[in-house]
């Protein structure tokens, strides 16, 4: 993190838009390259079914990456999310007898409590987030194992969970939803274009996001519609983007990560906002826990193991700086897609499972390298 490079390559004055452009592109380019490679690797790749599968497979990591990005923006990290996914899944399984709503509430309350616990130590006692959440990682895993007695807890036959985990929004409703989403994104994008006085940057972002939705529309509508689970994921991702771009809370996260002292002296309640962000992260992890449990039909107390690393990787591949202050949810989502597509093509290409480890490590480094290179381009 700390090298002399910062010295030699201070940001250009005024030339920033060009850089930002390249920057935003870099991750997208990586995604596009991966997409093209995937195409050559396997004929199955661009089929609606496979693409739908990919979105299903990244939903959990994507949801975690939304929370992780917010946390990292403040200069922190949340290593506990993987275990929290496991624990909240178990809690959902164990409380399912009380009905869907109470069970989901119990799970979310558990998330809130975990978030508050993290916040207590991080915001109140100034324990480094790495350590506080490392502790939580072990603690939550212990509870998950203890509560479930080490055995998976199956979900009983239940229409709601089944639909949520494996169902699809009927095609025609999907079409309507995608249409509305298209209009919504067009509206938001237009607002942001206007706000940025139609800079190249914002226009490209506008076009790309609409094209993206088009791709999604094609793939969902020519398969079975939008999976409910992806719908939840999409809502969370949009919520995250909205929070970071449209609310004071989001702005404060950037400010805290950029310069906590200046933010504090500007009347930003650093503690309160840190508490909010760790609670958000834990609650998103609980939602991920619910999603994952309904998807696989039961809760594994060991579930979610090392998910935190994938979430961090998604955020960082997406351009979020681990030092805080820089990053976007959009980037993190692209990062999650890169990881998801990577996993997908490694399997489609029948790569030796041991080599999959090696490839995955290399790609993470390469994606971040690409990002760094572009940031440094003169």
């Amino acid at each position, binding site marked *: 993190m700390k090298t002399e490079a910062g010295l030699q390559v*201070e940001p250009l004055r*005024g030339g920033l838009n060009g850089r930002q452009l390249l920057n935003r592109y870099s991750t997208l380019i990586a995604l596009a390259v991966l997409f093209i490679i995937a195409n050559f690797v396997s004929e199955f790749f661009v089929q609606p079914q496979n693409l739908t599968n990919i979105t299903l497979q990244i939903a959990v990591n994507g949801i975690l990456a939304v929370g992780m990005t917010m946390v990292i923006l403040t200069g922190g990290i949340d290593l506990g999310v993987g275990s929290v996914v496991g624990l909240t899944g178990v809690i959902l399984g164990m409380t399912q007898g009380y009905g869907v709503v109470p069970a989901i509430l119990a799970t979310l309350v558990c998330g809130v409590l975990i978030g508050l616990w993290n916040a207590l130590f991080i915001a109140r006692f100034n324990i480094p987030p790495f350590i506080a959440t490392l502790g939580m990682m072990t603690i939550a895993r212990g509870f998950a194992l203890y509560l479930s007695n080490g055995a998976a807890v199956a979900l009983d036959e239940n229409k709601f969970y089944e639909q949520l985990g494996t169902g699809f929004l009927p095609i025609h409703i999907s079409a309507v939803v995608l249409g509305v989403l298209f209009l919504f994104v067009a509206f938001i994008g237009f607002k942001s274009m206007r706000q940025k006085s139609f800079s190249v940057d914002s226009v490209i972002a506008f076009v790309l996001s609409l094209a993206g939705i088009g791709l999604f529309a094609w793939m969902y509508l020519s398969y079975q519609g939008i999976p409910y689970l992806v719908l939840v994921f999409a809502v969370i991702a949009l919520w995250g983007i909205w929070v970071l771009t449209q609310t004071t809370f989001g702005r404060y996260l950037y400010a805290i990560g950029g*310069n906590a002292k200046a933010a504090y002296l500007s009347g930003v309640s650093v503690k309160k906002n840190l508490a909010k962000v760790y609670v958000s992260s834990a609650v998103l992890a609980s939602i991920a826990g619910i999603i994952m449990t309904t998807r696989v039909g039961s809760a594994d107390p060991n579930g979610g193991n090392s998910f935190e690393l994938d979430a961090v990787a998604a955020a960082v591949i997406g351009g979020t700086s681990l030092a805080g*202050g820089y990053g976007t949810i959009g980037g993190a989502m692209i990062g999650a897609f890169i990881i998801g597509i990577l996993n997908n093509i490694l399997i489609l290409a029948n790569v030796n499972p041991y080599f999959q480890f090696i490839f995955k490590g290399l790609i993470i480094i390469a994606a971040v390298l690409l990002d760094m290179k572009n940031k440094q381009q003169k």
Partner: protein
Amino acid sequence: MIKLEMKGILKEFPGVRALNDVTFTANKGEVLALLGENGAGKSTLMKILSGVYPYGTYEGDILVDGKVCQFANTRAAEHAGIAIIHQELNLIPGLSIAENVFLGREPKKFGTVDWKRMHRETQALLNRLRLPFRPTDLVMTLSVGQQQMIEIAKAISIQAQILVLDEPTSALTDSEVEKLFDVIRELRAEGVTMIYISHKMDEIETICDSITVLRDGTSVGSAATRDVTRNELIAMMVGRDISQMFPKVVSEPGEVLLAIKDYSVKKSTDGFLLHNVNLDVRAGEVVGLAGLMGAGRTELVMSLFGALGLKAEGIVEVGGRAVNIQTPRDAIQAGLALVTEDRKESGLVLSLSVRENTSLVSLRSLSSRLGILDHKQESVLAQRYIEELRTKTPSAEVNVNNLSGGNQQKVVLAKWLATNPKVLILDEPTRGIDVGAKVEIYQLINQLTAAGHAVIMISSELPEVLGMSDRIFVMSEGRIAGELSRADATQESIMKLATKGA
């Protein structure tokens, strides 16, 4: 005898040409002043000289003793006898004084650090500078000014032929400045060539033999100090005449906006950080807060602002109402605003844009009750202050990191003005800022008082305090040593109060 010559130096950063054909010479044993506005390229030029920007990243020639030098790094420049004290502090807070002084050049014995020798030599340096520290003291226990003295010790220890001092006094007390000047005179007598950068004209006149002025990356002229007047220099620097350095407008003071009564802060069980401070500021008034470094001025305003983290006793009234301020947020709500001493460390969020920094404090009023931002209003606000303060920036969307010091300071001011505070507290508002920008900030202060705001201004530059204040409180050792009216205040009367009991 010409010691150093820089010829046709041209340096480009992506998107900007920082230096465009700079040429100057410095003689052996002379102190050369390098003058210029913020962003004129002074520091860049010196970074080229000292190898921070290695050979190949710039055009032009560096000649030392008539020989062309091509430095690959700072170490190479050091070998050629060039040492530099950078504008920003470059010390490692967690290391001791000795370790910092010898960083990168540790004396060794059997491959390991020779601590004994290192401490001995550091002690000798400290003695020479008359600094009352031990070589093993950690740098983080020193004040900024004291740290700056350590930087000076470090530069001297290199025993360079050419010593660059880039704004060395911006954090020094008067007595420390005197110590520094003594050292400079000694070195000059030893034949060391020094390049001295400062925005303080008094210092330039006191210590420099000749002057080179830079403007917009070009050298616009050189002269011996005794041959030019201050006004000529300023005109050369800023390209226009500044008729009045302190354009003070005296206005009729109104009601008391801030009153502090018997205000004390305990440092520990034994001592007081602030003791029985009584102070008041009226609408339309500028109150100067003078004192030696370490007198407790910053502590006083930080404590008032709820940012010191220590319990305070006493009464604070804003606009006639007693307030209980625990956090900066309380202070802002009560109508206070604080422009802190160090803009990079505590004033700005460097990763955010000018717009986002400007709106940071008033964000809540720019958003709905649910915390949803009104981007349009935010942009309007930022644009308004860019125009009102004449901030030089390509747009409101530019990262504030990319602005020059003076313009960054204007962004900080904009941030606080946007809250429409009753009382604006300025802690060293012109530190490191060029003359032109200084005058603009003074004019701004006038506009504020004219609009009925009250201003408290802390400054270590006595001419500034004298020039801009209606009343002056002098602090010493955490107490108010006395109050002076504009008419009574002179440098001597302030210094007398400031050193009272010290």
